[in-house]
């Protein structure tokens, strides 16, 4: 197959637009929730998302390990949860939007999470 016939279709304008939806030129500490993070974090995000349901919050309060059993999360991920290692959970791909729900059930307020995040730098 000749590449010549399609090369004209991939205009500079198109290539610039394609590049723009994948920010790359960011400081390292500004990680994005994108392909890599979302792939890495799906299990953890599912787990924390479940906490929008009152019965999941009750199970968390009653038996945190049994709550974690439901989501197929890894031993390392369990350890991050047990340790309330917020920056670790973030690096493992948990979004802040579901982390806030986890903050609710663990009784760790957002400013405390923020303090840990800042101190990680």
């Amino acid at each position, binding site marked *: 197959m000749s590449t010549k016939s399609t090369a004209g279709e991939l205009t500079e304008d198109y290539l610039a637009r394609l590049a*723009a939806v994948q920010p790359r030129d*960011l400081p390292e500490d500004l*990680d994005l929730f994108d*392909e890599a993070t979302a792939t890495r974090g799906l299990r953890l995000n*599912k787990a924390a998302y479940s*906490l929008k349901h009152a019965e999941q919050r009750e199970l968390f309060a009653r038996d945190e390990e049994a709550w974690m059993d439901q989501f197929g999360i890894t031993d390392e991920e369990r350890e991050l949860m047990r340790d309330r290692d917020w920056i670790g959970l973030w690096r493992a791909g948990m979004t802040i939007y579901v982390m806030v729900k986890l903050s609710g*059930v663990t009784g760790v307020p957002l400013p405390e999470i923020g303090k840990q995040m800042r101190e990680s730098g």
Partner: protein
Amino acid sequence: MARILGGVGASHAPSMEHVYDAGEEVRRNEEWEPLFGPFQEVSDWLGELRPDRLVVIYNDHMDEFFLNAYPTFALGVADEYPIADEGFGARPLPPLPGDAALGWHIARSLVADEFDPTICQELEVDHGVISPLPMVDFAEGDGQWRIPVVPLAVNVILHPLPTPRRCYKLGQALRRAILSYPEDLGVVVVGTGGLSHQLTGPRFGRVTPDWDQKFMRLLADEPETLCDYKHEDLIKLGGTESVEVVNWLAMRGTLPPKASPVVEAYYAHRIMGYGLQAFAVAE
């Protein structure tokens, strides 16, 4: 035919809900007056304007939508929108009244304009809608929603996100959808989110007031210029989570090129750059 009476850009944040729910005294204390005072001005202005409908462009925070199927644009076509439980129990507010017929019309018009939203017959709304809404909708402050709403959600969470220019064009398409609706309704469009905030990583809590104020100036005077900003630019200038300002840009797209704010306020406080901007449209 329906008309667009104005537009409102407003931050959204759980903190605004806590303050609102704590009552009038807290809203008007020294700490919160700089934000809730201007909100009262918007509320008074809307009380006079008496819009029949609100279209609210916002983003969900994984309270309705999840990563199994995350919609880029999602439009409500329901007559009622329950308040989401964000993980702490739902805020004790009645469900938002909707307007399914207007929602469906907007859906058809957007699709005709080559915007293809996820169409939602059921949708729970979270603080992306309801943290600023009481100040906009409870014109007389009795906890009853007055103005039926059509919610339009934008993905600002899972990259790739729709570009700022795309969101502005979405607003322009939404304008045509409203103007082509046969009922004689006055509509105000609300865009929520931002301004600067950073909730992840070592820069947690970073707020950038200079950029926020420049953003509001550009939004009023040069919205096309903002379309040239990339997400990367917005993230560097205002923080990772501040990209939700594209909701304001979509709102601005529903207004004429020349539109001047009737209320404008900015308050950098704690971990948020709070912004508020209300535009009247000359009849």
